[in-house]
């Protein structure tokens, strides 16, 4: 691990000013915010992250969960994943989010990891994590050995010829289905980004994973008011029953009227290069009777553009079954 300067700013403005001096807010950043440390310290030990300055934001007042004026929920950047998952309002109104968080990591890691940290969680692609290997995400232009190599865990949706790394988050998949908004305070003021626009597809620049720029501090996430009568479910399929990243996962928020789907929000995890909202599946479900055949059709629509690699073709059928089963369970 390279050494670094450790600073503990007294307020967000000072933190932002310190971060604004960074060369980038993406891969290769020489300045990083640290809160839980569960991703950052891990990658610093691997020399994948090499910041020369760490800005500790744990003492900033960003750790509250509060109702918003419109009846939604405001989740502070440094709210710990366990506190969010076990919050009474989340369990009552945003169950899919609680289920998704509790399906991820371990109890210890959930006690440390934060809302904002989870939003910028890095991929588990083994080539990204190994500095002895080429990786376009870690070292732009060096190549992607995953495409011809060990890619069983990697993405089938949103990939490019330069990168097929999976976004590993469970929390973000639920937030995509709940249509969360990310609130960012930067040197030029504040802005709000829908979660669907926050993460970037790898394209030609897999080193750029989010819209964040130097000085941008995620302050909180908001959820819209709960959808009355919605049924929610998060299903995660993985190699172990617990404490493992998803091979495929599905978050569904669905409403029925007279047995037909009147509203559906669907997102997939473990298969995309970003948390994967499937508007194709949502469109396929709208107005249709809630039955297995229609759920399967929605799953077919969600995976229609899937691109398998040499070892992960099984994920296409797995993701279809995952979504079908999640829709069945939610509406049962």
């Amino acid at each position, binding site marked *: 691990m390279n*050494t670094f*300067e450790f600073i503990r700013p007294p307020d967000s403005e*000072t933190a932002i000013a310190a971060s604004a001096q960074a060369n980038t807010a993406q891969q290769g950043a020489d300045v990083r915010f*640290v809160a839980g440390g569960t991703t950052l310290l891990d990658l610093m030990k691997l020399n994948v992250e090499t910041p020369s*300055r760490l800005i500790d934001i744990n003492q900033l007042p960003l750790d509250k969960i509060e109702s918003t004026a419109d009846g939604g929920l405001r989740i502070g950047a440094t709210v710990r994943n366990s506190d969010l998952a076990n919050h009474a309002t989340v369990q009552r109104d945003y169950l899919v989010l609680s289920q998704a968080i509790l399906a991820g990591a371990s*109890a210890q890691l959930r006690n440390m990891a934060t809302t904002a940290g989870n939003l910028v969680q890095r991929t588990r692609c083994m080539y990204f994590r190994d500095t002895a290997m080429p990786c376009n995400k870690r070292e732009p232009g060096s190549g992607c050995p995953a495409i011809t190599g060990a890619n069983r865990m990697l993405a089938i949706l949103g990939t490019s010829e330069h990168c097929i790394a999976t976004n590993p988050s469970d929390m973000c998949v639920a937030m995509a289905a709940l249509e969360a908004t990310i609130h960012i305070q930067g040197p030029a003021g504040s802005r709000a980004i829908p979660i669907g626009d926050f993460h970037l597809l790898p394209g030609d620049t897999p080193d750029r994973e989010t819209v964040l720029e130097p000085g941008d501090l995620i302050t909180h996430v908001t959820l819209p008011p709960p959808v009355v009568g919605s049924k929610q479910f998060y299903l995660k399929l993985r190699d172990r*029953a617990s404490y493992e990243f998803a091979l495929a996962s599905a978050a569904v928020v669905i409403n029925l009227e007279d047995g037909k789907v009147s509203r559906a929000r669907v997102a997939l995890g473990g298969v995309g290069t970003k948390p994967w909202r499937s508007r194709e599946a949502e469109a396929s479900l709208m107005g249709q009777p809630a039955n297995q055949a229609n759920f399967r059709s929605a799953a077919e629509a969600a995976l229609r553009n899937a691109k398998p690699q040499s070892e992960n073709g099984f994920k296409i059928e797995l993701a279809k079954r995952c979504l079908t089963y999640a829709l069945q369970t939610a509406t049962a």
Partner: protein
Amino acid sequence: MHEHPRPGPSTSAERVFFETSELIEKTPKVGLDGPTSPANTSISAQPTASSRNILATVPVKLRINGDNYELQVDPRTTLLDFIRETIALTGTKKGCDHGQCGACTVHVNGRRVNSCLSLALMNEGQEITTIEGLGTPGDLHPMQASFVNCDGYQCGYCTSGQIMSAVALLNEPCGPNDADVKELMSGNICRCGAYANIVAAIQQVRKNA
């Protein structure tokens, strides 16, 4: 009174601190850009664009098992390395050093965390508890006694992490069944495979609570 002297500021830690102090005097301060500042200004609220105050060591104040420690550490020192190497409380174990095995589990303000993925500097002002702060050989914590009764270990390397995790679990939302305990203990790996007895030990404490 403790049956065995507990490592603390007045015993073996003092020796480590002495060695560390000598090291500080012998080690030139590291500066990447321009002159360096005294160590005590490295944690600064007013960073400037042109200077990065990267120093060999920085001051840290930690409270562990009720004892206060004020020492100079390399800023890279994890909470785990501070506990094991700097103050010589070796009950906490280093397994994977990447948050994957749970051997390093300690409590911060009563909540279990992986001490390998937290910097010592990030834990100032927190109440930290290690296995040494839980019980003593003559006065075991009920969870320690239950691990003995149920034979919840073989080689013992993961045991302090298992016990710290299990004690924290008692204050977490957890269903009544073995499956609920297994799910919440999944962050603690036991390569000897003592899982069945570990779950039994935890359930025994929960039933007697």
